[in-house]
């Protein structure tokens, strides 16, 4: 530790920390415009000047390291004068249009001018007056207000890994803009907006909505992915106007992705449900709560009476709170009397849980979003966490920047393949084969400590399995050269610390139980534990719903999950779906539609009239995430509070209340008069989780060669998430839809010309299950033989093509493409 004195106060600090960092940590404020703790010191604005005894010059505290015995002064007349002059110079060209600037009131430049500035400037020059660049969908650039601190450029390039902005030009005319002054096309994370100390970068949706000091700001948790970021949400007159990150707050410490920042307006979509709906003569018509609940209760009771409780099933929701999900599980078990309950987690988190139990012998995978930091070698397998879990993505990029070797195994070019140390291009869906190949090399070259793992069950069986493999064969299947596979195996074996990072979600059609288990096999052989395999839960409350036992597998084989509920027409008689749109989100949509149509009774409870709701007999209107209190549990298992920020539209109600009322209508009181009652029970359930360790087990799994491409369906269809969306609810956000409003099909140039497809034209995509129409994007970013499309968009109907993945193993989706007939040009 280093001891120094700042303003007469003795403070101690870590070696290598700067004067500014030390001061801020000790609650001594030094003004600064260009410093950001996420970035390397820059020393550009000269506002952070301090006096150090024994030094003639004033020093920039943000880039001066502390030294033992230093005596620092931060507020002297000399400094005030210097800062005043710096501000005077910064304001020479500034338009001083604070009255019409959205930043006014929370603008660093304004605050500093208020504190140190002079009312008049001695320098008279032309004010900057170029028009704002409003072409980008979400971000407005008003370069007149820019003081060229460069924070936006550095946040975007150094931290966000995007590099969309540059400081173009020299001297006063320098402008922050994309390379050639083109339209800003980027991640739309909006990190630059929060970083900018002036009103030069603004979020367009918030433009002229309210003066910041009139906003009521409250903290809540993001409704999208399982990172569970803390959002600071600004509300005025009962409406959410913006969301931003607050420095140091939450697991995200102020960082946000575009979904968290701009996506909240999905709750203002016009298809929000305001009253219950009952199907009458084939039409859904508005009804009162009383009518709807009695109607639902009667029908459920009659199904139960006729066919028994096990003819009823329910689907819970990753979008709903832990309390909502708890109540649904309780309703099914105590009121209906069945364990038939499941969720989207069946396609992701449940598989991971299962695999961890089978292999590592533990129940909950220990997830840490910061686990990449400091690892020597990180392997990312057919995933892009910068898209699905942006905060984990930032840590992966941070690790790579600080010297971790990041090897990305993927079929598609992504941010990580660009920023990582090595990109191994693999045929989609074959990582299982690759992992087996790596294990083979470990055995062949005795690259692991056999002695320490010799007692683990199936070690021999794994060895035998890999003996039967030839690397040539693995290379054939995966498309990765033999030497690279062996090289990777040696690197993994040699590394002192390692991590495998991947994601598994409902839209994933290139990975499954087989992939997870073979990754676990690899790690066990190397003597690693469960914390070296990071597969975070998918959505904001996927983890929570699983914890609330919204799953069938709590003991009885006969319990029905998603498979029996949604893919077996005639299997069940009534289904109650809460906050999920399986017709859009789950694979093989036509099968699901057929199954739901065959039901005697379908209840859908959601915030909007989804495609699934369109099939229901009764639709119950629920409050969205911003309209109720409760908790979300993030990927790390952190239980965080979400808050009621605004009123629900019409008669919509929190899900847990609807479920309680429905129980009452069915003649059973399941308690839960108030939210606190539910939360007490939830807490008990969370507390019950006992640590379990069942011992390690290797699960030898031969790679079954994927169904080879055939003449009819020659292309592999890979479904990937988009950065601007999460599930399908986000497509109801107006802001996010400004960035990507519709689905598309990415196809390699060579394939495109082979099948006669031109860029940006309509193509017909056909699988054995059906056909859909998409706009094409011809690109070099995807390999030949593979086409990519995002999930998310309800109208695109991608899941009309996909196969059920009900066993948890990878099932490839094969398709063919053709031009969608002649469309008149222009």
């Amino acid at each position, binding site marked *: 530790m280093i001891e120094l004195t700042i303003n007469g106060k003795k403070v101690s600090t870590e070696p290598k920390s700067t004067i500014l960092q030390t001061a801020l940590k000790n609650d001594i404020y030094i003004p600064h415009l260009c410093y950001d703790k996420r970035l390397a010191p820059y020393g550009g604005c000269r506002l952070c000047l301090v006096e150090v005894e024994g030094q003639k010059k004033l020093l920039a505290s943000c880039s001066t390291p502390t030294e033992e015995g230093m005596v620092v002064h931060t507020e002297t007349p000399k400094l005030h004068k210097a800062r005043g002059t710096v501000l005077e110079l910064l304001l020479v060209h500034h338009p001083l249009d604070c009255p019409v600037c959205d930043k006014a009131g929370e603008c660093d430049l304004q605050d500093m001018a208020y504190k140190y500035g002079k009312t008049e400037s001695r320098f008279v020059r032309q004010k900057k007056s170029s028009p704002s660049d409003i072409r980008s969908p979400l971000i407005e650039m008003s370069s007149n207000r820019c003081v060229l601190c460069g924070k936006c*450029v550095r946040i975007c*390039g150094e931290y966000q890994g*995007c*590099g*969309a*902005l*540059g*400081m*173009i*030009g*020299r001297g006063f005319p320098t402008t922050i*803009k*994309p*390379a*050639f002054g083109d339209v800003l096309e980027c991640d739309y994370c909006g990190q630059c907006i929060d970083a900018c100390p002036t009103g030069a970068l603004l979020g367009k949706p918030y433009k002229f909505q309210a003066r910041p000091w009139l906003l009521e700001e409250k903290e809540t948790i993001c409704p999208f992915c399982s990172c569970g970021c803390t959002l600071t949400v600004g509300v005025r007159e009962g409406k959410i106007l913006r969301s931003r990150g607050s420095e140091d707050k939450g697991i995200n410490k102020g960082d946000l992705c575009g979904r968290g920042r701009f996506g909240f307006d999905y709750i203002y979509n016009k298809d929000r449900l305001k009253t219950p709906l009952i199907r009458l003569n084939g039409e859904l018509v508005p009804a009162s709560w009383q009518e709807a609940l009695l109607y639902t209760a009667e029908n459920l009771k009659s199904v139960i009476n006729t066919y028994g409780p096990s003819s009823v099933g329910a689907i819970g929701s990753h979008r709903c709170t832990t309390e909502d999900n708890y109540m649904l599980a309780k309703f099914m078990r105590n009121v209906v009397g069945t364990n038939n309950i499941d969720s989207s987690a069946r396609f992701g988190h449940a598989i991971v849980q299962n695999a961890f139990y089978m292999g590592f012998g533990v129940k909950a995978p220990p997830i840490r979003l910061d686990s990449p930091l400091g690892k020597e070698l990180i392997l990312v397998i057919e995933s892009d966490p910068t898209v699905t879990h942006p905060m984990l993505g930032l840590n992966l990029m941070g690790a790579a920047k600080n010297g971790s070797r990041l090897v990305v195994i993927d079929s598609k070019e992504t941010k990580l393949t*660009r*920023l990582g140390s090595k990109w191994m291009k693999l045929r989609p869906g074959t990582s299982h084969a690759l992992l087996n190949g790596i294990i083979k090399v470990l055995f062949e070259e005795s690259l692991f400590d056999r002695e320490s793992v010799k007692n683990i069950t199936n070690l021999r069986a794994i060895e035998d399995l890999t003996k039967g493999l030839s690397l040539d064969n693995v290379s054939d299947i995966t498309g990765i050269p033999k030497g690279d596979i062996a090289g990777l195996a040696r690197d993994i074996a040699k590394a002192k610390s390692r991590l495998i990072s991947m994601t598994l979600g409902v839209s994933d059609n290139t990975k499954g139980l087989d992939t997870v288990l073979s990754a676990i096999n690899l790690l066990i052989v190397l003597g690693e534990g469960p914390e070296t395999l990071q597969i975070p839960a998918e959505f904001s409350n996927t983890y929570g719903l699983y914890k609330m036992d919204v799953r069938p597998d709590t003991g009885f084989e006969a319990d029905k999950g998603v498979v029996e509920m949604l893919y077996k027409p005639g299997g069940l008689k009534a289904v109650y779906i809460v906050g999920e749109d399986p017709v859009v989100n789950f694979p093989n949509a036509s099968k699901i539609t057929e199954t739901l149509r065959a039901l005697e009774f379908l209840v859908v409870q959601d915030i909007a009239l989804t495609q699934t709701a369109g099939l229901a007999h009764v639709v119950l209107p629920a409050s969205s995430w911003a309209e109720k209190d409760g908790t979300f549990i993030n990927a790390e298992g952190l239980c965080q509070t979400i808050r009621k920020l605004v009123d629900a539209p019409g008669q919509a109600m929190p899900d847990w209340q609807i479920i309680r009322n429905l129980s009452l209508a069915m003649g059973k009181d399941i308690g839960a008069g108030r939210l606190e009652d539910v939360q007490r029970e939830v807490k008990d359930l969370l507390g019950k989780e006992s640590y379990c360790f069942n011992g390690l087990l290797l699960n030898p799994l031969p790679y079954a060669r994927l169904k080879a491409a055939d003449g009819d369906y020659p292309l592999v269809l890979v479904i990937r998430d988009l950065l601007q969306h999460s599930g399908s609810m986000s497509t109801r956000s107006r802001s996010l839809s400004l960035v990507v409003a519709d689905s598309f099909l990415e196809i390699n140039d060579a394939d495109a010309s082979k099948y006669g497809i031109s860029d940006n034209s309509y193509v017909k995509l056909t699988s054995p299950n059906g056909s859909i129409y998409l706009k094409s994007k011809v690109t070099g970013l995807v390999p030949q033989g593979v086409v990519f499309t995002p999930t998310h968009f309800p109208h695109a109907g991608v899941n009309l093509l996909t196969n059920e993945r009900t066993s948890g193993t990878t099932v490839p989706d094969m398709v063919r493409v053709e031009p969608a007939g002649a469309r008149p040009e222009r």
Partner: protein
Amino acid sequence: MLSDKTIEEVEALKRRYPDPRGAILPSLYIAQREFGWLSPEAFEAVSIVLGVPKAHLRGVASFYAMYRHKPVGRHLIQLCTNVSCMIFGAEDLVSLLKNRYGAEVGGTSPDGRFSLVIMECIGACEAAPAMLVNEDFHNNLTENNITEILEKYK
């Protein structure tokens, strides 16, 4: 696109620095040689090889006056018109270049042969007026010898 040989040249530069950003200036010169000027394609190509975003490359390039920010003719004349050169008749040379070849200051002759850029003192006052043609240096210019010199640049 850069040729394989040029890519290798840039790669080699990249390897010489701990941070690829160190190789930006020379790499841009290579791209400029290849593309004739710093066109969007030139930035794109360097960006791919160095792994530095093109907004950053353009930011760096736009700081320096001596990169070619617009397409130039086959030969670039950089003529000094500072005090010494001016006294010895540099302005007449500017007119001559315009009348004889159609090369305006900051522009290119219609046949694409010469581009003309006016320089501040290039440190050859003792033999003014002076100019650079591409990388060749010429001094003691007169209205007669300049046309002779330029004959060598087709």
